[in-house]
């Protein structure tokens, strides 16, 4: 729980910055350290990225290292791959994670597999950054959460930070990692602030974190749903129900230990994610628990709460009710601990 301490930063005088700023800092710091690191993507330069994540970076690093690309996702991913194989450390931004589909072949059949196909003779140190999730009213083609897909592709690493602190520390590790990393950012977190120390730090990939301790139920969750679950936890705590909230932070490779340990401790598990429930990564987590020593400690069925099995609708009320709501999470926890 090292960074849980950090979360109290505000109290201990650590400055607070937004999730978007944390990401920008991570990129800028790594770009200052090494000329091999650069950013490319649609409108990342003078526009500053669709969500303003890279605002100002082109002023510091120039157009050569903060490269605006044409609207061509396949070659964005593929060129990043080629640059990585030849020794650079590209960060490629895909403007919305929905559009990774256009670069899917390059990501899945090239970047992820090159090392293995070549018998270990190549490295592909690249990061694909892309904003995921609904809640912006942009409807079905701009709102999906497809992290489960990438976890099913050996060779990729998959990171889903839920706080500014995690975003910065994990992105720095992702940039340093010699493998292709899919770094899924949360649109709705971009403007959320949190404590981030000024000093250099990194968070190792594949390090699940217990965001909150509790004994009544284990809630495994990531991305935007972490804060929502923590809010529910605060509320239910007043009734004496203490939720333990575990955030894997990196879905692939998964640091399973803290999840299984927590399930063993509480005997009750709820998995919450923003992605559509069917075929989601919640299934993987449930299956891992159901095939772990925690199985013998379970006092109730393992529950999942993902989005309804529909594309994301436009109307704000419908959109808000597609994903796990505060109410649904609360109800699911209550049901589990009964």
């Amino acid at each position: 729980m090292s960074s849980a301490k950090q979360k109290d930063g505000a109290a201990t005088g650590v400055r607070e910055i937004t999730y978007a700023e944390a990401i920008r800092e991570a990129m800028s710091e790594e770009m200052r350290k090494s000329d091999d690191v650069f950013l490319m993507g649609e409108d990342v330069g003078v526009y500053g990225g669709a969500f303003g994540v890279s605002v100002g970076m082109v002023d510091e690093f120039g157009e050569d290292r903060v490269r605006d690309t044409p609207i061509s996702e396949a070659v964005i991913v593929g060129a990043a791959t080629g640059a990585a194989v030849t020794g650079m450390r590209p960060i490629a931004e895909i403007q919305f994670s929905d559009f990774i589909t256009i670069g899917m072949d390059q990501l899945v059949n090239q970047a992820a597999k090159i090392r293995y196909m070549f018998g270990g003779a190549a490295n592909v140190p690249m990061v694909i950054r892309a904003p995921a999730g609904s809640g912006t009213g942009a409807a079905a083609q701009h709102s999906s959460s497809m992290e489960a897909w990438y976890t099913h592709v050996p060779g990729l690493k998959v990171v889903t930070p839920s706080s500014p602190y995690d975003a910065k520390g994990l992105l720095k590790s992702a940039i340093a990692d010699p493998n292709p990393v899919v770094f899924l950012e949360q649109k709705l977190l971009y403007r959320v602030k949190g404590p981030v120390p000024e000093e250099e730090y990194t968070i190792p990939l594949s390090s699940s974190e217990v965001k909150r301790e509790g004994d009544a139920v284990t809630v495994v969750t990531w991305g935007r749903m972490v804060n929502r679950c923590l809010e529910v936890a605060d509320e239910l705590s007043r009734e004496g129900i203490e939720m333990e909230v575990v955030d894997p932070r990196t879905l692939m490779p998964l640091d399973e230990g803290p999840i299984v340990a927590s399930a063993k401790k509480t005997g009750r598990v709820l998995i919450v994610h923003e992605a559509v429930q069917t075929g989601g990564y919640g299934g993987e987590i449930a299956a891992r628990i159901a095939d772990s020593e925690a199985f013998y400690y379970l006092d109730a069925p393992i529950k999942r709460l993902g989005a309804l099995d529909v594309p994301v609708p436009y109307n704000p009320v419908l959109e808000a009710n597609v994903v796990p709501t505060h109410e649904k999470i609360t109800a699911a926890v209550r049901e589990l601990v009964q």
Partner: protein
Amino acid sequence: MAAKTARTGKSSRAGSRPSDSLTAEQLTDMYTKMNHIRAFEEKVAYFFSRGMIHGTTHLYIGEEATAVGALAPLSDKDLITSTHRGHGHTISKGIDLNRMMAELLGRSNGYCKGKGGSMHIADLSRGNLGANGIVGGGIPIAVGAALTLKMRKQDQVVVSFFGDGALNEGSFHESVNLASVWDLPVVFVCEDNQYGMSMSRHKSINLDDLADRAKAYGIPGKTIDGQNVFEVYDAMVEAIDQAKKTGPVLLVSETYRYMGHSKSDANRYRTKEEINEWKKRDPIAILRAEILRRGTADEKTLDGIEAQTREDIEAAVRFAEEAGEPDVNDIINDVYA
């Protein structure tokens, strides 16, 4: 500068052109549609500035002549695919403005029952196969629709709209190539509004004339002045004829968007001067001047039309506002047929 190139135009002015014989009624209809588009968009812009519409939107203001000129020669049975910047195409193809506004406001009586919003309005009953949130996403669909027409030997055409930025997507390439080798009746209309979001088309494409893209597929390609609805109309009449007879055609319509790319755009990538320069050739003003020159309607009539289009949009807003929010229980419907 592109504005200058566009100004000179490229189509031959000699001889009589199809647009010379547009009837008074047709001219009035075109004027009405361009004003409907502008009034609709201005209303939407207003709603956004007040935070009254959810999500984002991409406004077509300044580009009206392309949609109206391109679709005026079409029959009701002809088909279109549109884009994220689709309001203009949608209104030009004929639409129930009430249900369209209702969709933007996310109402249950909207075209998509509030599930689609600005980027997903479609009206299959009028041959509109839909706006699209994916740049270049509608182009393959247009090709498939044209395949239906060809296999069923239907004498219709598909018009596929997309932007200059979409010219760089693989979907454009695969689609035009397929339409070319299969001789499908598609007119590909590239709306070159000079930018793909913040990127100048001069930086995203290494061509002076974007219509040169056509040369890669052995099909005709032509660049036209997209601010002049007559030039668009004439090019389109010819293109539709060609598409039906010999297969696809690429038209590049030189135009400009007055507003930011979407609601969050600081316009850092272009100058006020450039925007003002383009506004001097406003497509509605150009049409209006020509109508007056031809004398098919007078100032008063045209003012009346303009006022009426604004009133139509207000009525659409009332229609939308009278309807309720969609029922939360409706979320799970419409996934499968």
